[in-house]
C-alpha cells in the first residue's frame, strides 16, 4: 500500500466521518486549526483507523505519536510506519 493510497484512505475518513469538504483537505492542512477537529474527533479517528486497518493503538508510545500529529501528512506517516513495522496485515485492510 503506497503513500498515495494511504492519503486517499485518510481523506475518505475525514470526508465521511467529519463531514468535511474534500476541497479543504490537503496534506499540510492542520487537523485541529484548519479542519476544526477536536480531541473527541481524534478518539473517533483512532477507532476508525483501528477498525479499518486492524491494528491496535496502544496507550504508551502510540499516544505520544498521536499527540504529535498536526497535519494530515503526519497521520499518513503514522499509518505508513504501522504498515512497515508489520503490525498491519495489508490483506485484511477494510477499505
Amino acid at each position: 500500500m503506497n503513500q498515495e493510497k494511504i492519503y486517499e484512505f485518510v481523506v475518505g475518513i475525514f470526508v465521511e466521518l467529519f463531514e468535511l469538504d474534500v476541497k479543504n483537505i490537503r496534506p499540510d492542512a492542520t487537523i485541529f486549526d484548519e479542519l476544526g477537529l477536536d480531541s473527541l474527533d481524534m478518539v473517533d479517528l483512532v477507532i476508525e483507523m483501528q477498525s479499518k486497518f486492524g491494528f491496535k493503538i496502544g496507550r504508551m508510545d502510540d499516544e505520544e505519536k498521536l499527540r504529535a500529529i498536526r497535519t494530515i501528512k503526519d497521520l499518513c506517516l503514522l499509518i505508513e510506519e504501522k504498515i512497515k513495522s508489520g503490525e498491519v496485515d495489508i490483506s485484511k485492510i477494510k477499505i
Partner: protein
Amino acid sequence: MKQNRVLITGYGAVSPFGIGTDKMLAGLFSGRSCVVNIKEELGGKLANGNCFVAAPLSETPDASQIPRKYRRNMGPLAEYAYRAAADALVHAAVPKEKIGSAELGVAFSSSLGSAAALEEVFKVYLDDSPQAIPQATSFFKIMSHTCSANVAHALGIRGVNYSVNSTCASSTQAIGIGYEQLKHGRQEIMICGGSEEMHPMVVSIFDLLQAASWKYNDHPTQTPRPFDSKRDGTVCGAGAGALILETEESACQRGAKIFGEIVGYYSNLDPTSMAQSSKESIVLCLRGALDDAGVEPKQIDYINAHATATVAGDISEAAAIAEVFAGLQVPVSSLKGHMGHTLAASGALETIASLEMMRSGRLIPTLNLEIPDPELPALFHVPAAGLVKKVNHFIKNSFAFGGINAVLIVKEYTK
C-alpha cells in the same frame, strides 16, 4: 425577601402532530388523534408483547441543520429538545446577548438518555471482535442529562443547568425548578422543558407493567381513553416541549409578549407504591400548589389532567380532584387521547396547549372519552364539543413512576 413574579414569554414544540406549536395546537383543537399501529415498523422489537400502538412523531426535525460539533453528541431526544428550545427562544424573542449571559439557564428533562444510542452501544459492546468500539460521543447521547447539556451547548447557554429525570413528571418538574430559580432571583430567564423519543424498549416496559393499551391495536385512534369506562392503558408518544420562563422585571423591561404567569408549584412523592401515586399524595400535591399560589380551589377555572388512561392512575387522579374541588364545577380534560403519553415531554407540551386554551377561552375535550367510568368520582369533564370559558387560572397535573407528583398553577397575567 423579594420574590419575583414568573412569566411565560415563549414556547416551542415538537409533537406527534409535527414540528411547531401551530401544528400541535391545530391538531388538538380539531380533535385529531396521532395514535397509529406500529406493529409493522417495530413489531419485531416489541418482545412478545400485546401493545402495538404508539404516537410517534409524524415528522422529525432536520438534524442536518445542527452543526456537527453539537449533533455528534445528540441522540434523537436531544435533537428534539434542541429544536423545541431553539424555537422557544425565537418565539420569546430573547435577545442574543441575553442567551449567552450568566442570567439565562436551563432545566430540561427526559425519562432516560437516548435509548436508541444505548442500543447502538450495546450492539457494539456485545460484539467480541477487537475492532468493536463505540463512538467517542456515545456517552453524551445516553447520559441522563443529555437534553439539558445538549440544549445548553448547542445554544451557548452559560447559566444554571438542571436535568430532571422523573419520567412522566419530568417536564412539569423542570418548569417548577425554573419557576423557583426565577422566583428567588437566581436567574432572569430559564428554558424549561422535556423530551422523549420513541423506542420499542419503552413501549415494551409499559406493556410489561400492564400500563399500555392493547385492546385497540386494530383501531389505534380509539385509544388511549382517559377517564372512559373502556380504557385499557396508555399509549407511548414522542415529542419535546420547551417554555421560556422569565422574571416580570426582565420581560417588561424588554417588552416581551406574555402568555401567562406561573403562580404555584408543588411536588411530592408517594412512598407506598413505585408504580402509581395514591389519591392521598395527589391531594397533598394539589393543596401544596394551591398554597404556593395563594389561591382557593374555587379560583381554578380548568384542570389539565395527567390522566393517561391507565385503569388505576385515572382513579387516583379523579378521586383527588373530586376531593380538593368538592362541590365545584371545574372543567377537566386530558390531552393523552390526542397525542398519547409523551412521557417526559407531556408536562411541557400540555402546558403549552393549556396556555392557548386560556388565551382563546376554548377548552379542548378529552378525545375518546365517551362514557365516563362509573367507578370514578364524577368530574365535570369538558364536553365532547368543547367548552367556551374564561380561564384566569389553570392547573397542570403530572404524575410519574416512582410515585412522583408535580402540579403547576398558571394564571392569566395582569400587571
